[in-house]
């Protein structure tokens, strides 16, 4: 053989051996020296489907403080449960080679550190299995582990769900060889845990507890329910908002839980994951500090007036942004067990003692009483039925439609102009004003103020009050007179605040809203633009009435006056239908600074005591405004009038 042939043979050998060696190496690497990922896959049960879950969107206040976030907990399942149940009943092989259900559950408890009553859990699962076989002829294939069993008042056994914390789940996964321990080492997977599967669930977390709970709302687990198939992917929606923003914006806040096929083909994995689009976050108009001040003022007001419940709204009349919304009692969002009792207190009325209300501001209409006179006077001034200089001789009583109307304390105030009527809150005067206006224009104006209609606030559920009109079955001429001073008509505090905000904002009502921004998953921010809700009265009327109400407070020496700031407002004291008790609802609506109103505050305190005249809005609700308004001015950086005029470019 010559050299050339020898070289060719060598070359051929190498060409053949190198691919062979590569094959051998690759197979060795794959089979003999597997990577950590492959080793974990070999030793762990390989799921055909994987749950992909996106958390629910966050809710933040206007300064970015978290009001609703998420935390995780883990459910634990035993696959092939029937095998373990069988061994539990008939015993397994000797030497622990065939573990029973008790062995498996005990191993889970050891690995996770969770407290489990093994005996009770096994007994319960056996019971469920027997019931399933008897009823449907189907054995239990997957066992969901529970922490234990409790017996309810009816003697029925109920399972206590087992939810592992992040730390407990981590311990379990280390024991299963699914993840390394703290030192970075993978442990040998325990045979006992071979069929154990954990599933992470997001849970809503409300770090501020009861703060702004009326606005934020609550999101509850809806259970597994029926999955919805979308393009071959089974999608479960597990949480649903119960009230407030959580309910109104449920569609964009909602996280999704999906079962996607779990494959090792990279392209298929990523294409499946693309489906799990995360939800959007929402930023509220609520300011955490103003909200806390408002809640504190409300609690203090109710305590001072010995009221049963109450609510306050703080809104910016120029934009419709709700800066704070508080009601009392309020639920602690971290303690759902207390919800029902709180709702019952909020909803209890003489004619509906078992009623339930989730929000006093948007879902509990009441007869507002004298704060409604602002709307009556606005309508009368705007239509020209009266002017601020119109005189009224008050004798303390007036008969309209066969019904005699009295003033509070049945007093007569003599000759009064319209400012005097508002200052002394004279029922007879406002009833007379309404008759001067006439029922047609009066109810037309009330429609423009959206009384009896929803405001469209972005909170659920909003409930509208009732406004009876001419032609309605129970409407009579006297209804017009009583409506004029806020009885026989119902509205929520939000409806009242929005309607009266027209007087504070040059005749224009802005749509009330609690969401300021929506942050999309890709970081784009959608900012909510203030939208006018309507202009029920002219700017000139609004200015005139605002001045009348500011002067009224000043002449009266009202307890609502705020040092350093000129404010306007009106008190209200309303009887509670069916008018069989002497209980009242005390209210006050106020806004300021009068020359550039930045806040409007509506206060409602239910059933204050009659001792020391505390049933009146002027005694119970007005001081709450005087206490709260300067705090809000300070938080918003609004200087006292004298300083503001100095700092103003025109000053």
């Amino acid at each position, binding site marked *: 053989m010559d050299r050339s042939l020898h070289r060719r043979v060598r070359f051929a050998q190498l060409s053949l051996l190198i691919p062979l060696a590569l094959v051998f190496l690759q197979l060795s690497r794959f089979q003999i020296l597997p990577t950590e990922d492959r080793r*974990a896959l070999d030793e762990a049960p390989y799921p055909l489907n994987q749950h992909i879950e996106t958390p629910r969107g966050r809710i933040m206040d206007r300064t*970015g403080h978290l009001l609703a976030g998420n935390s995780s907990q883990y459910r634990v399942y035993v696959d092939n449960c029937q095998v373990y149940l069988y061994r539990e009943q008939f015993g397994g092989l000797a030497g622990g080679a065939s573990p029973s259900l008790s062995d498996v559950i005990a191993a889970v408890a050891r690995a996770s550190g969770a407290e489990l009553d093994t005996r009770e859990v096994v007994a319960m699962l056996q019971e469920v299995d027997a019931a399933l076989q008897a009823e449907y002829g189907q054995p239990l294939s997957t066992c969901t582990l529970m922490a234990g069993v409790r017996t309810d008042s009816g003697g029925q056994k109920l399972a206590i769900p087992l939810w592992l914390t992040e730390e407990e789940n981590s311990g379990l996964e280390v024991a299963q060889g699914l993840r390394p321990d703290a030192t970075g080492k993978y442990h040998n997977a325990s045979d006992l845990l071979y069929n154990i599967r954990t599933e992470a669930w997001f849970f809503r977390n409300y770090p501020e507890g009861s703060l702004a709970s009326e606005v934020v709302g609550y999101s509850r687990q809806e259970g597994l329910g029926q999955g919805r198939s979308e393009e071959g992917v089974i999608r479960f929606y597990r949480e649903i908002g119960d009230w407030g923003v959580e309910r109104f914006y449920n569609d964009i806040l909602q996280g999704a839980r999906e079962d996607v096929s779990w494959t090792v083909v990279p392209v298929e994995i*990523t294409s499946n994951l693309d489906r799990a689009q995360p939800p959007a976050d929402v930023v509220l108009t609520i300011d955490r500090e103003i909200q806390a001040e408002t809640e504190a003022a409300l609690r203090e007001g109710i305590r001072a007036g010995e009221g049963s419940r109450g609510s306050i709204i703080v809104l910016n009349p120029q934009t419709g942004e709700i800066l704070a919304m508080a009601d009392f009692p309020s639920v602690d969002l971290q303690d759902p067990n207390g919800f029902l009792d709180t709702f019952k207190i909020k909803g209890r009325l003489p004619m509906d003692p078992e009623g339930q209300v989730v929000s006093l501001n948007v879902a509990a209409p009441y007869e507002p009483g004298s704060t409604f006179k602002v709307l009556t006077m606005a309508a009368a001034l705007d239509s020209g039925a009266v002017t601020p200089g119109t005189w009224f001789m008050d004798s303390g009583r007036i008969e309209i439609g066969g019904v005699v109307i009295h003033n509070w304390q049945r007093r007569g105030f003599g000759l009064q102009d319209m400012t005097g009527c508002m200052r002394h809150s004279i029922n007879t005067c406002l009833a007379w004003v309404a008759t001067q206006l006439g029922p047609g224009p009066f109810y037309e104006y009330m429609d423009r103020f959206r009384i009896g209609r929803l405001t469209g606030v972005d909170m659920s559920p909003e409930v509208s009050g009732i406004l009876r009109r001419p032609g309605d079955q129970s409407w009579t001429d006297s209804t017009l007179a009583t409506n004029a001073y806020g009885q026989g008509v119902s509205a929520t505090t939000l409806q009242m605040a929005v309607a009266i905000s027209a007087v504070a904002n040059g005749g224009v009502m802005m749509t009330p809203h609690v969401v300021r921004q929506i942050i999309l998953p890709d970081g784009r921010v959608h900012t909510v633009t203030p939208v006018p809700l309507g202009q029920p009265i002219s700017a000139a009327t609004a200015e005139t009435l605002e001045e009348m109400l500011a002067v009224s407070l000043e002449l009266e020496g009202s307890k609502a006056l705020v040092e350093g700031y000129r404010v306007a407002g009106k008190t209200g004291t309303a009887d509670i239908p069916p008018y069989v008790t002497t209980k009242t609802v005390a209210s006050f609506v106020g806004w300021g600074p009068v020359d550039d109103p930045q806040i409007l505050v509506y206060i409602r305190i239910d059933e204050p005591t009659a001792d020391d005249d505390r049933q009146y809005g002027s005694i119970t609700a007005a001081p709450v405004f005087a206490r709260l308004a300067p705090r809000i001015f300070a938080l918003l950086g609004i200087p006292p009038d004298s300083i503001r005029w100095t700092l103003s470019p025109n000053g």
Partner: protein
Amino acid sequence: MQNEPIRKPSPTKIRAYKQAPWREQTRLLAIGLASVFGLMAMLALFIFTGAQAAEAGLRVQSLIRERDRQLRRLEAQEAELAQKQNEEWMRTRAAELGFKPAEAGDIDYLVVADLPATVTIRSSPTSLLYIEQDVALSPAYRETLLEWVLRAILREGGA
């Protein structure tokens, strides 16, 4: 049909075959073996690529699990942090440190032109899940050989 005349091998070839008749067999054997090994080399390449893809898939799965874990941790830690800084706690702590809410008279006001907005909203941990269209896989990872060739031809043709 006219038969082709049979061409007689050259005397050198005849002599060589007579001297070493195994040469022809060896050559045929070598060609056969080369084909087999060539096929094996292709299979090796196929296995190599397949194994790499599967391993990449496992790595992706592992990373997804890790991302999920980190997402959950971030969400939980954010909620925990918010809980530790909630309004009530901050107010209590401020009171303990001797602070009190400022009254109107305590505050000095001054005009600052073009005051920048100080509110910064942190991006959500859920944004981790958002997959940008820009980082989508190249078609080369999804298409068949034929599709790739056609695409290459079209691209060349279009250029």
